[in-house]
């Protein structure tokens, strides 16, 4: 009797929405923070391999501490736990002369925006009928822009509140970096709205499932699992996919993709655009004066931003959680899980790409970045909008 009542209560629409949202938020947050520490480990390993080193390979299960003869190195996977433990147990030093309130506020401001971005990213189709987006709002992309621009405040405030020269320069650089790329970031996405006709990320993903990923020049029409058994239908759908409009639209979509990708690099302060941090020139830039958990917040924020940025790239350009042929979650929970896995796999590929880029390219000079933003990407993104409009107007009708 009681359980039936509780079940009834839990399945009333509003209550159901509330508790599933909380559950999704909780699980996603934990998964993402886990992914962050894996990313840090991957970064250390990949950087080591690129530089012909070995990388962390010792920290595993410390059997010698428990009285054993030999440690189990586990390819250094224990580093993922050892790093945060080290950061958590260090002294949290606050230098004299800092502005205490803002000094404590800044790390939180850096950590928060990337986690908020995750709220609007569809990380899967649906599982047991529950939509795998925390908040399906119809201004999703705008929300991402609005929230990610906030993270620059964290960096600028950290630089200013530290009351020290290098963090200050880092903060200044960060704000000027933001105004030079944020504009092209916004403009580069407008052609996508023109093609898909929506600002809702879920709908952009749906559009891509129907019409193919935005970065693809060609997409088979109406591809499905049963077609694999009927070669005639398969060939038919392969041919039906060829269209002039699609091919022409591919050019502006690629331009948008490149500009968006590069801007995301700048957004997340990754090399080659890590000017606010710039260890070699600025001793670590805006977080020079931070230690322990405050520093870890910046660290987490950077990697969470990488994750959120990759998630945005995947959802907007690379078909989100969809894979060709694979059906969505309405065909059973198994496919729902496959979709979630596909999303995380795609995000991991982009994350690896970011790491790979970091250990390949040298840092841009300050003025080069501004020039790239204002004289390169800004006009190209503007021109791209007109190009898309012309293609849509001429070929579409």
């Amino acid at each position, binding site marked *: 009797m009681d359980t039936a009542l509780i079940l009834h209560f839990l399945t009333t629409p509003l209550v159901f929405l509330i508790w599933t949202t909380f559950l999704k938020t909780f699980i996603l947050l934990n998964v993402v923070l886990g992914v962050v520490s894996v990313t840090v480990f991957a970064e250390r390993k990949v950087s080591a391999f*690129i530089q012909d080193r070995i990388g962390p390979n010792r920290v595993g299960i410390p059997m010698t501490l428990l009285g054993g003869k030999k440690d189990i190195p586990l390819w250094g996977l224990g580093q993922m736990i050892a790093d945060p433990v080290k950061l958590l147990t260090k002294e949290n030093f606050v230098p004299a002369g800092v502005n205490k309130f803002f000094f404590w506020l800044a790390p939180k401001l850096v950590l928060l925006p990337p986690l908020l971005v995750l709220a609007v990213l569809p990380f899967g189709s649906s599982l047991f009928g529950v939509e795998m987006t925390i908040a399906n709002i119809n201004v999703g992309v705008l929300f991402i822009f609005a929230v990610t621009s906030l993270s620059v405040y964290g960096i600028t405030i950290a630089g200013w509140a530290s009351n020290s020269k290098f963090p200050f320069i880092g903060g200044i650089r960060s704000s000027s970096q933001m105004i030079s790329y944020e504009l092209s970031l916004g403009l580069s996405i407008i052609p996508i709205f023109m093609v898909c006709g929506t600002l809702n990320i879920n709908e952009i993903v749906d559009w891509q499932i129907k019409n193919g990923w935005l970065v693809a020049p060609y997409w088979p029409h109406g591809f499905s699992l049963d077609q694999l058994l009927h070669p005639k239908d398969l060939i038919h759908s392969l041919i039906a996919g060829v269209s002039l409009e699609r091919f022409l639209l591919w050019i502006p979509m690629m331009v948008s993709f490149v500009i968006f990708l590069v801007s995301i690099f700048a957004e997340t302060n990754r090399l080659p655009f890590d000017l606010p941090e710039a260890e070699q020139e600025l001793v670590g830039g805006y977080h020079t004066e931070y230690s322990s958990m405050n520093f870890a917040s910046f660290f987490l924020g950077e990697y969470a931003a990488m994750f959120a940025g990759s998630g945005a790239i995947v959802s907007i350009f690379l078909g989100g959680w969809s894979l060709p042929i694979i059906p969505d979650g309405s065909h059973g929970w198994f496919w729902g899980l496959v979709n979630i896995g596909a999303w995380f796999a795609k995000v991991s590929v982009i994350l690896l790409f970011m790491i790979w880029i970091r250990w390949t390219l040298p840092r841009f000079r300050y003025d080069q970045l501004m020039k790239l933003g204002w004289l390169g990407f800004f006009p190209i993104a503007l021109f791209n909008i007109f190009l898309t409009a012309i293609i849509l107007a001429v070929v579409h009708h």
Partner: protein
Amino acid sequence: MPIVVNRPKLTFAEKCYLPSIFAGLAITWKHLKRALFNKGIVTMQYPEEKWDANLPDWYRGAPTLVVDENGREKCVSCQLCEFICPPRAITIKPMEIPENDKWRKVEKRPEEFDIDMARCIYCGLCEEVCPEEAIFLRKDYSITGLNRAEMVHDKKTLYKLGGVMKGLTFKWNELK
């Protein structure tokens, strides 16, 4: 005289970065792939693998005391090394060699000879200053201890590390 260096004329391909970015990515990819299969790695796994066999003759490791081929302590406790040691790592307590000793003629030897390895900076001045060629920097470099007391090398340890030094040595080797 000022030298004018003209800015090189860049081609369009160079100006838009992309070709060199791809070239760079190809290079790092090659290294990544090679390292994944454990090839071309230059790291030496320190405590298991060591470079000891390749240490040069003039390597300045821990300072040690030596005996000659007759088993006589070469140090005569003149304390010159104690005075020259920049971080004052050496402490010597001299003693007179007793009447009935075989080496009575030498007159003095150290009763205690301590080198605090937590202080020593491996400068080699003690070796240079020693008139008796009794103190030498050998090749031991991995000196560890759990506390300050363990880091002090006493006379026994010093002789154990130093061993025997036969004949005359050419101390003023140009590399020393």
